[in-house]
């Protein structure tokens, strides 16, 4: 599999460049010494302070050149040492924070993706099977509206409807509650509102793509063939047409994980979910660089892993790719933040 290895190398290079940029940006734009020591860092006239500064510089290798510091950081990172949190008292390791917070964000994303896919598939099938009729037109407009609602607005709208007016869904997220269960004291239920906030917009995006692909597939001869074999309409749609139409959707699913992280910044903030996204916001505001760097790297890695996985999913869906090895992957230019 030389092609797969080539891609892996390419992705690793990309990760290296991303870490360099983030590392450089933080050191140019901010002042790591100040973040470690606070006001003392500026107090260069006081010999005591100077001593502390020198010690700190030595401890955090701030006296070394930028490339060397990056290399040290990268070496540690590869070994699983993400450094320490500057801004917390006692400077605990960054990995503690990530271990605590990452699972919550992953749960949120999983709930959101599930909601999105579960909505998008029947929605697209319905629209495509009635292409250009009233049902389809209404659903296209609806999808368009959902895509145009930013996640922060969606959060407010859903919160207002379901939590304030109807009062059916909980508005508090409690990180210590257990996940699995169906009462307001379980995080699964607490994640419904945040999940829909991220999931509705995503579902609309998926629907737009899947509907188009389904309509194309439905014009294929083999659909007519299946119909003439006496296969029911429903079975034709879900069994014959859906699978060959899933390519672009899978690409988008992978890419969208990246955007959901962006969306979850807002959602975690608004619904007070102490996840990785809110951690990075807090860390940025406090200029806690090791945390920011670690999270950026985790998000980038995740993004790439999912993109890489998508390639394998294609071959599961389409046997032609399996045998011919010619990935007919549809290119989707990503756009947005």
């Amino acid at each position: 599999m030389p092609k797969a290895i080539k891609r892996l190398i390419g992705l690793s290079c990309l990760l290296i460049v991303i870490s360099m940029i983030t590392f450089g940006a933080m050191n140019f734009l901010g002042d790591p010494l100040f973040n470690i020591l606070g006001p003392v860092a500026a107090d260069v006239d006081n010999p005591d302070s100077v001593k502390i500064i020198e010690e700190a510089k030595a401890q955090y290798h701030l006296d070394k050149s930028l490339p060397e510091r990056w290399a040290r950081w990268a070496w540690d990172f590869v070994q699983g040492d993400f450094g320490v949190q500057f801004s917390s008292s006692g400077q605990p390791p960054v990995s503690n924070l990530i271990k605590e917070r990452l699972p919550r964000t992953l749960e949120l994303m999983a709930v959101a993706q599930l909601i999105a896919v579960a909505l998008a598939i029947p929605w697209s099938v319905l629209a495509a099977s009635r292409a250009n009729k009233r049902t389809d037109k209404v659903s296209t407009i609806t999808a368009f509206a959902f895509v145009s609602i930013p996640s922060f607005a969606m959060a407010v709208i859903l919160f207002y409807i379901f939590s304030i007016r109807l009062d059916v869904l909980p508005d508090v997220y409690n990180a210590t509650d257990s996940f699995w269960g169906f009462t307001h004291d379980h995080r699964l239920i607490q994640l419904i509102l945040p999940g829909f906030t991220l999931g509705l917009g995503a579902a609309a995006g998926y629907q737009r793509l899947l509907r188009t692909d389904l309509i194309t597939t439905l014009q294929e001869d083999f659909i007519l063939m299946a119909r003439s074999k006496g296969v029911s309409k429903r079975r034709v749609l879900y069994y014959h047409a859906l699978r060959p139409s899933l390519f672009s959707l899978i690409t988008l699913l992978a890419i969208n994980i990246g955007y959901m992280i962006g969306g979850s910044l807002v959602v975690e903030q608004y619904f007070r979910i102490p996840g990785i996204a809110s951690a990075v916001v807090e860390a940025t505001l406090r200029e806690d660089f090791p945390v920011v760097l670690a999270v950026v790297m985790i998000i980038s890695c995740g993004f790439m892993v999912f993109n890489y996985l998508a390639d394998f999913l294609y071959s599961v869906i389409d046997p032609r790719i399996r045998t011919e090895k010619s990935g007919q992957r549809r290119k989707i230019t990503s756009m947005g933040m």
Partner: protein
Amino acid sequence: MTDENHSPAEPSEMEVSEEHEHDEVSATEAGLEESGFAEKKKIGVGFWIAASWLVLITFLAIFAPVLPFKEPNQNFIVFEQKENPITGKIQDRPVQPPYSPNGDHWLGTDQDARDILSRSIHGARISLAVGALTALFGIVVGGALGMIAGYFKGILDKVISAIFLVSLSFPGLILAILVVALVDRSLITISITIGILAVAPIGRLARAQTLSFAEREFVLAAETLGAKKSRILVRELLPNVLIPMSTLAMLVIAIAIVAEGTLAFLGLSVQGSSTWGKLILTGSGLQTLESSPWVAFAPMGFLFLTVASFNYMSDRLRDFFDVREIFVTRD
């Protein structure tokens, strides 16, 4: 040789009688291939509705200071004749804001009795400015890089394409937060930061367009006539790349407005002025939302209509000009 089976026609727009409901699966099939008419492309009424809204909101935003809107920062406290619970005297007492929408304040007021309509219109100034500046930056930088890569090819193309790739793989919003938090929260910084994120998508489109046009006869003709490369880029290629780029630029404006709103929600918006994002944030707390939902929903309406209009116009235009690439419009 292929008999009647040309590539099936696009599903027709025509309304269809209901008695044939059973057959929607094949409804888009067989269709009109026999007649072979290509349907004329129409931009649609929706496009003009969206355009009208954008013209209106831009006009209002630009001329807000001279138009008869209320002062956005003034507190319009209403007084009413009421018995003073301590003294027992009837006197003018302030009514507790926020006030719901009424004849005086069409969209109501916020907790400080400030006029929401006026604040939303004034908020449009900043939000639209961020969108426009971002798109401008994206088009100028992305367009230039993309056209250079597409026209000169070779090592230059490789380097620029690599830059685009890195940019697209970067968790953009986090970069934006980082820059805005570390540099400053001025309109220019925020616009350029979001603009940097728009460079790669616009640049890739410009590159692809340039690549395809660089092989066309008119460019080859100009080259054989000895035209300078810079002249070919500007006179021959730019006009052809500009249309697809501008369709994308509308999408960039929409995304920039949303991104600014997101930054506002994280407390990182333009300092000193109220944007739509900030206005929505003001009204989005539990208490405010419960007692006076209009505080959040009115500016949200403005934001939504504007974002949807840009999205829709971009969508229609890309369809109209056949700009074949799929863009993900999520924030």
